[in-house]
Every structure is written in C-alpha cells, then in structure tokens.
C-alpha cells in the first residue's frame, strides 16, 4: 500500500535525483570514452585490484544492511540497537575507505596516477588513452569517497542525536533520510565496481 512521504524524505529523494545526475555526468563521459577506446580501457584491467574491489563491494553492502536495520530500529524506537547498527555502519564505512586508500597507494607505487609520473610500460601504445581511464578511476572513486566522508559525518551527528532525543514510529526522519543517502552511495559503488575494475578481466 503506497503511503505519503513527508517533506524531508521527499526533499532527500529530490536531492538524490541531483546526485544521480552528478555521478551520471561522469558515467556518461565514461561510457563515451569506453566506446571510443575499448582496447586502452581493457588494457588497464591487469592493474586493477578486482579482489579488493569485490571485498569493498561486500563491505559496502554489509554497511547498507546495518544502515537499513538502524532505520528499522528507529521505526520501532529501540535506541540501543539504533546506536549499535549506526556504529557498525560507520565501522564498515571506515573499512571501505581504508581499503580504497590502500588501493590508491598501490596505484601510486605502480606509477598509475596520471598527474604523478604516469608510466605504462607493458602497453606503450596505450600510454595516452589509458590515462583517461585512470583519470576517471581517480575522479569517480574520489568523488565517491568524498560522499562516504560526508555520510560518516552525518552518521556521527546521528549517533549523538540518538542519545539526546528518542526516535520512534512518529519521528525517525533524520535516520530515514541519512539512510537514503547512504544507500545511494552504495548504489553508486555497485555500478563503479564492474565498470572500473572488471573491464577486461576476461582477457
């Protein structure tokens, strides 16, 4: 049975609409270059870390589960479980960022950062166009990580808020809308993972 949403939740959905277009701009540009330079894009696969990426996907899905449960317990007003699940969500979030940054470190060691002495000895013929993919890789995952940081900040606020006021079936909007945001960030990653990590893994 469809139900009415309140203003704040609707506002969050409209905001997520803008977020879709924000990331969508990059996904669109990515699609075009991928069609233009299929070989160069596929050649990057051996430098990606699909296992780390896969682990990170799983971590983020777990954080989505704990976030959804935090919202669920806010709906029934269980302060203690809200606290536990929010903190679990944050732990998963921090873990994700940790893995992400260790990947960045690995790429930096391999000279795969386009503006920091890019080297591509195995496929010199793709030296140029591979940089486009790595630009996308760093910009897209970077913007995604930025959103993760914002989400973690919001959740810190929520944890404190949870101690001060009681969320219950009448009022759990802040948990709900921060949950929406977190799930959205998860969804972005669900697309980033196959598009960036698994381009030419089969070759």
């Amino acid at each position: 049975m469809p139900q009415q949403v309140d203003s704040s939740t609707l506002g969050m959905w409209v905001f997520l609409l803008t977020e879709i277009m924000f990331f969508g701009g990059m996904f669109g540009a990515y699609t075009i270059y991928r069609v233009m330079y299929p070989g160069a894009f596929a050649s990057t696969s051996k430098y990606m870390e699909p296992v780390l990426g896969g682990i990170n996907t799983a971590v983020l899905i777990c954080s989505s589960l704990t976030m959804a449960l935090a919202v669920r317990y806010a709906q029934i007003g269980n302060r203690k479980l809200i606290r536990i699940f929010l903190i679990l969500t944050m732990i998963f979030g921090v873990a994700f960022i940790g893995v992400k940054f260790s990947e960045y470190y690995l790429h930096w060691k391999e000279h795969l950062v386009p503006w920091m002495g890019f080297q591509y000895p195995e496929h010199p013929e793709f030296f140029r166009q591979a940089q486009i993919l790595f630009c996308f890789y760093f910009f897209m995952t970077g913007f995604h990580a930025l959103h993760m940081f914002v989400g973690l900040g919001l959740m810190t606020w929520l944890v404190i808020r949870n101690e001060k006021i009681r969320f219950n079936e009448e009022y759990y909007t802040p948990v709900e809308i921060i949950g929406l945001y977190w799930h959205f960030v998860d969804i972005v990653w669900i697309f980033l993972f196959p598009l960036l990590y698994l381009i030419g893994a089969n070759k």
Partner: protein
Amino acid sequence: MPEFHLLPPAAAVSATGYDLLWWYEVAVALIMTVVIFAGVFFFAIRYRRRSESYVPRPIEGSKLLEITWSVIPFLVMLTFFFWGAALYFRNQSAPPDAMNVYVVAKQWMWKVQYPNGVREINELHVPVGQPVKLTMASEDVIHSFFVPAFRLKRDVVPGRYNDMWFTPTRPGRYHLFCAEYCGTEHSGMVGWVTVMEKKDFENWLVSGGAEGSMASQGQKIFQQLGCSTCHLFDEQGRCPNLRGLYGSRVLLNDGRTVVADEAYIRESVLDPNAKIVAGFQKDIMPTFQGQLNEEEILEVTEYIKSLASQHGGMFTSEQTGPTEGGGRGGSIANAGQGTLDTHGTSMTNQPPRAEANAQAQDANQPGAAKPAAPGGKK
C-alpha cells in the same frame, strides 16, 4: 564611412543556396511577427479598459485553436528543417574532384599549405569554379574557419581533422575570420580568401612554390622516421602496403570496414593500434604522437595520398619523386622545433605529456602573479 550592405557578398555556390533559405525564413519570421504584433495591438486597443467595474466574461480556451496553432507552425518548421538539412548534408563531404588545401590553425594564425608545397599565412587563394576541400587541424585550442562570403564555417578542433569544401563563384577578396574564441588575439586571427580566375590562380600557384611539394616533404619524413622499412611497397612487408591505400576501403581484423581517408591516416600514425588491418599484427608500429606536428602529419598524409594510383583532383595526382626541396632547412627535428613552436610537440623521445606538463606548470598557476600570455601582449 564605408558603404552599407545588408548581406555579405555571395561568392560561392553554397552562399546562393543558403541565402535563398535565409530569405524564406526571414519572410516567415516577418509574417509571424506582424501577426502577433497586430494581434497584441488590436486586442489591447479594441478591448481596452473602459470601465473600472466591468469584468469580462471568462473564456475557457479552445482545444481546436490550440491544436491549430501548434500543428501549423510545426509544419512550417518542418520545411525549415528539411530544406536546411538538405543543404547541410550536401556540404558535409566534398566531391571527388575537389582540390585539396591544408589548413593548420594555431594561436593566432591560419597556416595554409598547398599540395605542391606553397605556403601562406592568413591568406587562402582559390580558383573560381573549382571545388576546394580544406583539411583542417589545430595545434592548440579550438578555432573556427569562417568565410562569410561563402556562408560557411567549420570549427578546427585539436586532436582531429575537420574538413569543409566549397566552390567559389566570384573572383574577389573576402574576409576570413576565426569564429571560435581562441584567446587573447582572437580578433586578430583574421585573413583573406582570394578567389581568382583559373588562369591567374595557376600562375600564382607556380610562382609561389619554391619548396618541394608536400608529398615530397612527406616522403622525406617517411624515410627519415624509418616508416619505409616496414611499409614496403609490395605485399611482403610487416605492415600494410600503402600504395593505392588512400580512398580505398580497408578490412580490419575485427571485421569492420573503414574508408582510408585523412582522418584514418592521421589516427594510424598517432594511434597505430586503433584500427589493425586484417591479416596484420598489432603492436608492431610505434606511435608517432609527439614526434610529428600537425603540419608534418599532413605532409605524410599527402605523401600517402600521392601513392594512390587512382586519379585525384588537380594536385592529388601529382606524382612527386624524392626531388630536392629547397626551403625546408635541415633535419625534420629542426622543422619541428623551428618553423612551429607548438605545445606538446617536439622531436625528442620523451613522453609528450611531460613536456606539456612542464610548460603548463609554469604557465597555469592561477594563484601566482599573472604570467605573460604566451603570444605576448598587444
């Protein structure tokens, strides 16, 4: 005070066609404007407020009217579309007998080169009645080649070729403008297109050309860079035979077929693995990105075109041997550095980006004190 014109001179086949469409659109626009202005004025005066207490009877609207004034304008607009699209479509690809001229744009000049080697700056000479095809490349930012008298304009975009063609109809000197904003001296990036009688043009072209033809210069580059060690002119080489290549359809190893045009040759020089000819290996040819500037690539292209056995335009058929061209002093390395100082192109073997980066670093620090513009101030 110069004399006043409503339209620029019309000096090409395209200009006459475009003007006709233009006048049609102006007529439609004038009629529509008059109708709407008349409606506004008539209603405003006829139904002006005569009494403060009078409130007119409401009128809900009319579906029939709404449909009428949606459909009829749209039908008129469809005539705009089809007429405009037909002219545009016709102007997209040059006829096979078009004469080739090459244009390289850079901040802030137009460099023109004819296949026989004649070079001009900010000038273009063309014969009347002869289709001319310009193949255009940019060394730096986006420019736009605009000749109002031909009613034609085409952006010149870095990293690719854009071409345009026209058939001049009236001798005279006509404006050439850069129409896409390209930096400090954008408004100084202007020149002249001179349309000449065929005879005069041929005389001019001969008197002007002291250097070797573009094809011969291309051939020199071709040999100096060692292209000829693999691209043998028979079917034995490790790389495809280039004789008769230009204009032919090439079967690729992924099953696609492409036409070997200027853009294809350019791509093959700079990005050899992009399109591998069926039956050949990839990763054999190195990229020449950063080793050749746009002009040199055009010369190589012209050389490969000259190898086409088929007929060509006035100049494409001109077969040139390894004759001694005088004016291109010294090695190609010199040519790369000397005649053109371009961004990110040099004859050194270092990756092109490093140099561009270094250059960009000292030029593009927004926080730093304002550096001088690359071309110097006015």
